[in-house]
């Protein structure tokens, strides 16, 4: 990266604080955005990153403090007000209308008016130009629901680009993108900064963020703990400031590897059109063993795990749990036999938002505290308390609403729910998605601890560094098949090459 550490400050936060009742999300933060440069905001979940970005983009107003735009103090009435002044934001959660086309989504709320209503042809032309710039083959008339998640994120980015912004805030823009799509996005970011656009970037993917940023700001507990230009920092510096502790995802634990716990034979899973998403796959998992499945989006990891769990049905093949064929069993029966899945999307598939932390934790093991017709409150409380302790959920107690927890703690609740069923095989689909390093390390420690006690663990990931942590064995999936299998001494490059990913030189 070129050295661009100085530059005029276009937007700044001065002593900005935000409180929600008793909770102080931000405690007096100073933050500068320089013209034509990328400033990355690092911090764990709940550190206040998103709150700060929402304040800078006018979505919420600070409790105290000031926003300074081009040297003048300003107060944004709302997000539109900020957008009119050239500040736009790409939110972490996608905000697209799935039933509408790419074109209509990109121009939603600011349609181009022609002589006879909306000028669709002009809109379509502009979308094509944007997609060319993003090197993505998405037809402007495709409904958004037909796109895969990564492409939807591209649409979201295109929408922000279609407004000529001076300042563009990107909150986790790459969480669903493949490596090659991330490359393209970074190229676009470099083009934008060359044109004088300022970028604020937030990502949990630290290495990735380091390749693009000019400045690094670290938030912790609502305070700014460190600031430095790119030339003075490295990964260690960021992690040290983020968690104030050594960052280590662990190494493969010493375990007693037992008999084959789960055996997948010739498993094929078709999609709607009959194309195989999982294609004749074979895999054995032993008790006490930790296996990592690496692959790009669309490699078939999620389909494989969901089929084994019982959500999807296979077109061919066998799933054998501890010597018994289980393909015909319901999800509930599989859980009862000791096989359970921690799904990828915890909001959609993992948690019941209307229930408390405790009720979510006990949901999959209601049978364990049901006595005759009724549940035993005492036994349930016991189970919940044990779970909270086991997976170290930071919560006010079992009665707290699930929405009051940070992302990492919510993920621990989902894992705790599955562990409470006393499984012998646990599958986790992208267990680290959207959670911070501290929580990630704790999750991996939990899995390692489980394996030591004879649990068979299988988890999927799209971050290579997570393969090379606690896994004894690394399986690479590509187009529904196992393209390579490694032990824990393999290099990152080899894993990435086997996944069909282009390895940056």
């Amino acid at each position: 990266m070129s050295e661009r550490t100085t530059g005029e400050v276009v937007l700044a936060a001065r002593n900005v604080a935000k409180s929600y009742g008793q909770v102080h999300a931000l405690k007096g933060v100073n933050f500068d955005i320089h013209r034509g440069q990328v400033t990355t905001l690092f911090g764990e979940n709940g550190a206040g990153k998103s709150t700060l970005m929402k304040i800078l983009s006018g979505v919420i107003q600070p409790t105290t403090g000031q926003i300074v735009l081009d040297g003048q103090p300003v107060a944004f009435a709302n997000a539109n007000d900020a957008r009119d002044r050239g500040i736009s934001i790409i939110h972490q959660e996608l905000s697209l209308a799935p039933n509408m086309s790419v074109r209509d989504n990109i121009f939603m709320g600011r349609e181009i008016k022609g002589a006879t209503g909306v000028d669709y042809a002009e809109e379509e032309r502009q979308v094509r130009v944007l997609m060319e710039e993003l090197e993505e083959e998405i037809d402007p008339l495709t409904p958004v629901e037909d796109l895969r998640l990564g492409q939807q994120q591209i649409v979201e980015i295109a929408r922000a680009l279609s407004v000529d912004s001076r300042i563009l805030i990107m909150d986790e823009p790459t969480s669903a993108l493949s490596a090659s799509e991330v490359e393209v996005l970074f190229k676009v970011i470099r083009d934008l900064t060359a044109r004088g656009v300022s970028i604020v970037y937030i990502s949990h993917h630290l290495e990735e963020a380091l390749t693009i940023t000019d400045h690094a700001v670290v938030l912790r507990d609502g305070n700014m703990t460190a600031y430095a230009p790119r030339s003075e920092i490295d990964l260690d510096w960021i992690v040290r400031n983020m968690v104030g502790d050594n960052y280590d995802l662990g190494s493969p634990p010493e375990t007693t590897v037992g008999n084959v716990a789960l055996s997948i034979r010739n498993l094929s899973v078709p999609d709607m059109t009959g194309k195989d998403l999982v294609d004749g796959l074979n895999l054995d998992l032993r008790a006490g063993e930790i296996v990592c499945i690496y692959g790009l989006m669309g490699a078939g990891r999620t389909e494989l795990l969901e089929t084994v769990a019982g959500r999807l049905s296979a077109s061919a093949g066998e799933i054998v749990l501890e010597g018994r064929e289980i393909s015909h069993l319901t999800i509930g029966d599989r859980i009862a036999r000791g096989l359970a899945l921690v799904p990828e999307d915890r909001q959609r598939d993992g948690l019941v938002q209307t229930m408390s932390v405790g009720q979510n934790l006990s949901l999959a093991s209601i049978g364990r505290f049901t006595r005759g017709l009724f549940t035993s409150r005492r036994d349930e409380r016991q189970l919940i308390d044990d779970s909270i302790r086991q997976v170290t959920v930071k919560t006010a107690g079992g009665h707290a609403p699930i929405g009051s927890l940070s992302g990492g703690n919510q993920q621990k609740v989902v894992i705790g729910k599955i562990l409470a069923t006393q499984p012998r095989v646990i599958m986790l689909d992208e267990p680290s998605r959207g959670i911070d390093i501290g929580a990630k390390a704790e999750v991996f420690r939990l899995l390692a601890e489980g394996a030591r006690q004879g649990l068979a663990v299988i988890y999927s990931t799209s971050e290579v560094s997570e393969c090379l942590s606690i896994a004894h064995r690394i399986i690479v999936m590509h187009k529904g098949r196992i393209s390579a299998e490694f032990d824990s001494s393999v290099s990152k490059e080899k894993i990435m090459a086997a996944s069909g990913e282009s390895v940056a030189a």
Partner: protein
Amino acid sequence: MSATTATAPAKGRQMSIGRLLLEGRAFFALIAIIAVFSFLSPNYFTVGNFLIMSSQVAIFGILSVGMLLVILNGGIDLSVGSILALAGVCAGAMMQGVEIEALGVILYPPVWAVVVLTLCVGAAVGAVNGILVAFFKVPPFVATLGVMYVARGVALLMTNGLTYNNLRGSEALGNTGFSWLGFYRLGGVPISVIVLAVIAIAAGLMLQRSAFGRWLYASGGNERAAELSGVPVKRVKITVYVVSGMLAAVAGLVLASQLTSAGPTAGTTYELTAIAAVVIGGAALTGGRGNVRGTMLGAFVIGFLSAGLVIIGVSSYWQTVFTGAVIVLAVLMNSLQYGGGARKG
């Protein structure tokens, strides 16, 4: 070790007066209604009047309990009013005697058999709803709307649009006792109110204390997550519609017994009153939130309000306006309670 803090804006909230009023709104509304009408009419605040009002509320109350289960599941059941009519007509037909042409005899089943068979009819219609929704993925609104018309149509066909008037049975045929449900009292309390109380308590226990109750709340809150946690979501779904249909049949029996007649147009728009009671009771139409206590309060608010308006001589047109206003107000409060609730900061 990690510095993560759970941002919990809703934790440690004070039980301010506003909060208390909001959470107990149905209860306070009921107290206010009783107070206002007692002030306006000396006839309102009497044991006799309360018992009469309660036996009227019983019909809606029984329907509301079934509706609550369906709404907790994230569905809606528009067919309960029609099932109520169909159940009444079926009971009426059986009381008049079932003619078996092949044998040339007319059967007069005893009352207990009439009750059991009628409940089976309700359950069967409910099962149709449940299967349409759970297995054929028909949206609940549409599925139960269709069944609403079909059930009403069948009831009209069975009677040719007429009403069965004589449900008392006769000693000679051994089928007396049908009026017991609607007229008898136990310790001064009408049987219908006792039936409602038993159903409400059973439903409350089931929701709060049984595994099924937990399954219902979970699958209403997030069906995908519940399914992956091993909850048999389809079975839960069918069960709630079956129970709702069965309770509609119970209400149909009680109503027919109270009126000693069964007509095919009984219970028209009752499903809407039941939905209103559930909503006033604080349940969310999106599923997963609500309880029996709230729904009972909702049913009594509607029943006591309209009865009060009758007693002080307000036109029935105004009753409709008032009831509507109460429903809108209730939904408004619901969105206040859930919209501003706990969110990740």
